[in-house]
């Protein structure tokens, strides 16, 4: 279990403090700073790896991962409609779950490192690849391919949003500067990665618990969706990982990516593109349920799944 890892403990501290209505609060700019640093760190790490081994096979893998980011939301949407969610709300939910959570990815990185399990270092590339497609799927599901959608503004929103720019920017910098160029940056982006992640999770705990307030408004169907969807997606992710020939660590990471739900890029994009969707519904699910679930229970589970697959196949 990951429960005794200090980063998870920081999350639980924030979560508990918020449930107890403590007045503990992190300055908004600290949270922003931490998320900028995590995004850059993940991008840089991936970029350094690309500098070592960019290849056609990697491009092929990326296309396959991208396809997963399109297919999963398409499958989940009709199910949500059956469960009675409004069209816009269902579309918004699947956009959140088809995309990824960088925070969850970072916790998985720290978890595997603590377990001494390596994974393909280029996996941050897949974070980038998975970020956007589900949002597009969600918008089309909500509105159809309508003429009155301002696709230009939307494309701008999607590809020039904060997280994508930092991830891709970090990737490119890591790629161009290469391992030796990035070396002097390591004290901040690599050595301090875990403690900064711990602080980030403290804030995430505070926020996640504050989302629970709206939980009873949405009831059981949302809780079911927010715990089943990551489990199902993780199996899809793990399957794809095995099919792509990833290592055990790589399979666990791809399962985690698939299981994670966005709470930064997607909410902002959907708010503008599909304003009739209830933003609080998706955020409650992804931030209030799925994020804690993945951090505390999911990630260790996905690793076991990967190990079991490796042992079985």
């Amino acid at each position: 279990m990951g429960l005794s890892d200090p980063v998870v403990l920081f999350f639980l501290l924030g979560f508990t403090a918020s449930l107890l209505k403590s007045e503990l609060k992190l300055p908004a700019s600290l949270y922003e700073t931490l998320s900028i640093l995590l995004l850059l760190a993940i991008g840089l790490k991936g970029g350094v790896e690309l500098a070592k081994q960019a290849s056609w096979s990697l491009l092929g893998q990326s296309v396959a991962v991208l396809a997963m980011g399109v297919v999963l939301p398409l499958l989940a949407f009709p199910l949500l409609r059956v469960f009675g969610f409004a069209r816009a709300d269902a579309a918004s939910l699947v956009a959140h779950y088809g995309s990824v959570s960088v925070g969850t990815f970072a916790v998985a990185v720290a978890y595997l490192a603590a377990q001494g399990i390596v994974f393909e270092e280029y996996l941050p590339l897949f974070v980038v690849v998975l970020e956007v497609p589900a949002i597009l799927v969600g918008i089309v599901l909500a509105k159809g391919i309508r003429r009155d959608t301002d696709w230009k503004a939307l494309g701008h929103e999607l590809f020039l949003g904060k997280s994508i720019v930092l991830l891709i920017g970090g990737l490119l910098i890591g790629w161009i500067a290469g391992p030796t160029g990035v070396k002097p940056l390591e004290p901040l982006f690599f050595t301090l990665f875990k403690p900064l992640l711990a602080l980030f999770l403290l804030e995430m705990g505070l926020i996640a618990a504050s989302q629970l307030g709206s939980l009873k408004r949405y009831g059981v169907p949302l809780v079911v969706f927010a715990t089943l969807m990551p489990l199902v997606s993780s199996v899809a992710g793990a399957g794809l990982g095995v099919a792509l020939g990833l290592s055990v660590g790589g399979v666990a990471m791809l399962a985690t990516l698939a299981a994670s739900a966005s709470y930064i890029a997607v909410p902002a994009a959907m708010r503008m593109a599909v304003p009739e969707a209830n933003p609080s519904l998706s955020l409650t699910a992804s931030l209030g349920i799925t994020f804690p679930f993945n951090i505390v229970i999911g990630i260790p589970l996905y690793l076991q799944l990967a190990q079991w697959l490796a042992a079985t196949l």
Partner: protein
Amino acid sequence: MQTHQRTLLTVICEAVLEHKLEQALEKLGAPGWTIADARGRGGRGVRSAGWDTEGNIRVEVICNRELAQNIADYLHEHYYANFAMVCYLSAVEVFRADKF
């Protein structure tokens, strides 16, 4: 200095609308505007500014009565249904008639 009657339109709405609002104000011909960050509670729940997209902004536009009405109408038509938003008018006196 002599003063002139104008109308102050105040809009309180979700921070995520800031950019769109500025575009609308420009399009509708507002002579200027002032924006500040805020938080609050209204018909659409608590907006605590504790999380990225969760804050409000408070926008002020000084202009003539007609334009203020126009802007308010435009905002109601485009955003009121789906976004937390409140508009109100008040009477103010300005010093430079040509500026507003």
